[in-house]
C-alpha cells in the first residue's frame, strides 16, 4: 500500500541570527513523513531537532520547500493551515491568568468565525481533549495555579482540541511523571489509530523507540530515517550518541541502556 505524505521537506536550509552572526543550523534536509504514522525526531543537544520541527510548522524562515499534505506550506492560508496542523511548543510563555477551559478553547480558534461564540461542536471537542489528558477536573482553575506537569497536560489538550490531521509536538513529555508519560503514549497510539499523523521531538530515547519511525539527527543533518524496529535505526541511534547508549530488546520493547566506560 502506498501511503501519502503528511509532511515533506526538500533541500531545506535554515539560517538563524542576524547579519554577520548568521549561522546555518539546518543543512539541506530532505525527508518524507508518512501519513497516519508517529515519527519521533531524536538526536543529541543542538542537533537541530526543534528547529526542524519549527520549520515543518512554518514557524521559521527557510529556503527549500516544505509540503503539508502534499501542498507547499507557503500556499496554505493561515486559517486552513491552522486547521490541519496543530503545534505544541516547549517552554513557551503561558497564559497564567486564563482559566484552563479558555486556554483549551483557544485550540478551536481555527474553526470559529471571527468573534463567533463557541459552538456545541467546539465545547464537545474541548471537553474530549481535557478528558483525554485527565485535565477535566481543573477546567475552572487558572493556568497559573497548576504545577508544571499539570500545565503541560492542559497545553497538550489545547493542541488536541484543534483536531488537526497533523500534530507536531516539541518535548511533549517535559515535566510529566512516568504514569502520565505512559498515558501520553497511549494517547498518541490512539491518535495514530484514528489516522492522525504525529511528529514529536523527544529526549527520552526509551519513549521515542515506541514510535513507528525515527528520524535521527546530528549537527543539523538527518543521519538516518527508518522504522524503530530496524537494526540499522538502532545502530544510527547509537552512533549519534557516541555509542554511550545501546539499544536492546526487553520484554518485547526496545530500550536504550546507558553504556558506561567502566
Amino acid at each position, binding site marked *: 500500500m502506498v501511503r501519502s505524505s503528511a509532511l515533506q521537506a526538500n533541500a531545506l536550509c535554515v539560517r538563524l541570527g542576524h547579519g554577520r552572526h548568521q549561522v546555518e543550523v539546518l543543512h539541506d534536509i530532505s525527508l518524507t513523513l508518512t501519513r497516519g504514522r508517529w515519527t519521533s525526531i531524536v538526536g543529541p543537544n543542538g542537533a537541530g531537532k526543534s528547529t526542524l520541527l*519549527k520549520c515543518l*510548522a*512554518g*514557524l521559521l524562515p527557510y529556503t527549500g520547500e516544505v509540503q503539508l499534505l502534499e501542498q507547499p506550506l507557503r500556499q496554505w492560508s*493561515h*486559517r*486552513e*493551515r*491552522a*486547521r490541519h*496542523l*496543530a*503545534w505544541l*511548543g516547549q517552554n*513557551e*510563555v*503561558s*497564559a497564567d*491568568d*486564563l*482559566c484552563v*477551559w*479558555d*486556554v483549551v478553547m*483557544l*485550540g478551536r*480558534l*481555527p474553526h470559529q468565525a*471571527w*468573534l463567533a461564540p463557541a459552538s456545541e461542536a467546539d465545547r464537545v471537542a474541548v471537553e474530549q481533549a481535557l478528558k483525554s489528558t485527565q485535565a477535566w477536573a481543573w*477546567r*475552572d482553575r*487558572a493556568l*497559573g495555579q497548576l504545577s508544571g506537569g499539570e500545565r503541560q497536560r492542559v*497545553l497538550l489538550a*489545547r493542541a488536541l482540541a*484543534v483536531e488537526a490531521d497533523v500534530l507536531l509536538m516539541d518535548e511533549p513529555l517535559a515535566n510529566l511523571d512516568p504514569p502520565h508519560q505512559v498515558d501520553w503514549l497511549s494517547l498518541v497510539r490512539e491518535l495514530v489509530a484514528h489516522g492522525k499523523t504525529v511528529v514529536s521531538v523527544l529526549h527520552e530515547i526509551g519513549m521515542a523507540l515506541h514510535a513507528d519511525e525515527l528520524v535521527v539527527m546530528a549537527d543539523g543533518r538527518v543521519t538516518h530515517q527508518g522504522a524503530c524496529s530496524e537494526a540499522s535505526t538502532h545502530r544510527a541511534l547509537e552512533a549519534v550518541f557516541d555509542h554511550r547508549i545501546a539499544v536492546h530488546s526487553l520484554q518485547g520493547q526496545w530500550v536504550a541502556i546507558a553504556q558506561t566506560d567502566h
Partner: protein
Amino acid sequence: MMPTRAVWMGLVGVWSALALAALGVCVGSTGFENLIGPLWSPASHPDQAAMAQQIVWEIRLPRTVGAWAAGALLGLAGAVAQGLFRNPLADPYLLGSASGASLGVAMALVALGGGAGMLGGVSMMNGGVAVGVFSSALWVRIGLTGAGFLGAVLAVLLTLMLSRGAGHTLRLLLSGVVVGVVLGAGTHLVLLFSPDSLQAMQAFMLGSTAFVGWTSATVMLIVWLACWLLAGLLARVLDGLSLGDSTAFSLGLAVTPMRAALVGVLALSTGTAVAQTGLIAFVGLAAPHLIRSLIKTTHAHLMMLSSLAGGVLLMGADILARGLIAPQELPVGVLTAVLGGGYLLWLMHRGQTQTGGAS
C-alpha cells in the same frame, strides 16, 4: 468561563460609576453640598435651581464624565499593553507612550504659537480665546489629541526599536524607561522655550481633570468607544498571544498586523487621555491588576472590566482631589500616583508573602 461573574463585576463597575458621578456633582470648592435636590425638584428650591444647574452642567458634570472617560481610556490602554507585551508591568507610562504623548502636546502648543498663556479654566469661562492646553475649542482638542496620538505612537515604536521587539521583557521595560525619561526631558526643553505656557503646562504635567469641559469629555468618550470596539475585535488575538508567538501563529492568527493594530489602540487611548488631562500615573497599571486579582478571565472581559475600573478609580480620585483640602485642590495625578503606588506596593507585598508561603 464564568461569564456570569464577569457580568456581575461589569454591573458593579457601571453602578459605582453612576454613584460616584452623583457624588461628584455635589463636591466642589465648598466641600459637599447637595445639588441633586434642587435639580431634581426645581419648584421647591427656585432660587438655587438655576445656579445649581449652571454649576453642575457647565463645570462639575463634564469634569466628572471626563475623569471617568480618561480613567476608562487609561484602564483600557493598561490592559492592552499588559496583554500585548505579556508583561504585568507594562503600562502606558512604562512604555514611554505617555511621555511621547505629552511631548506631542507640548510641541503642538508651541507650534500653534498661542502658547498656553491662559489657564484653560479662565478661557473656558470666557468662551475660549487663546490656544491653551486646556482650551475647550473643538479644533484645539482634536488637534492636541492628534498630536498626543502621534507622539504616543512614535514613542512606542522607539521603545520597541530600542528593545529590538517585545520578546525580551527586561530590555523592553528598560527601553521604555529610557524613552520616557528622554522624551520627558524633551517636553521640559520645549516648554522652556515658551515660558508663557509653563504655568498651564505645570498642571498638565502633574495631571489634572480640573479643566475638562464638554468638548474634551466628548472627544474622550468617542475615542474610548472606538478603542474599546477595536480592542474587543482583537481580544482573541491577545488570548492567543498569551500562549506564545509560535502557538498564536499555529492557530492561524496573523500575529504581526494584529499586533500593530493593538499598538495603535494603545497609542490612541493613551494619547487621547494625555492630551485632555495630562500625565495621570498608575491608573493604567493599577486597573488591570485590580481586575486580575479578582477574576481570571479572557482578554475581552479583562479589557472591558479594566476600563470600567479605570474610570471608577479616576473618578473617585478626582472627587478626593476636589474634596480633601477644599477650597484648595490637589492635582489628581499626584493623588493617583500616591494611591496607585501604594496599592501596587501592597499587591507586591501580598504576592511575595503568598509565594513565600507556598514554597
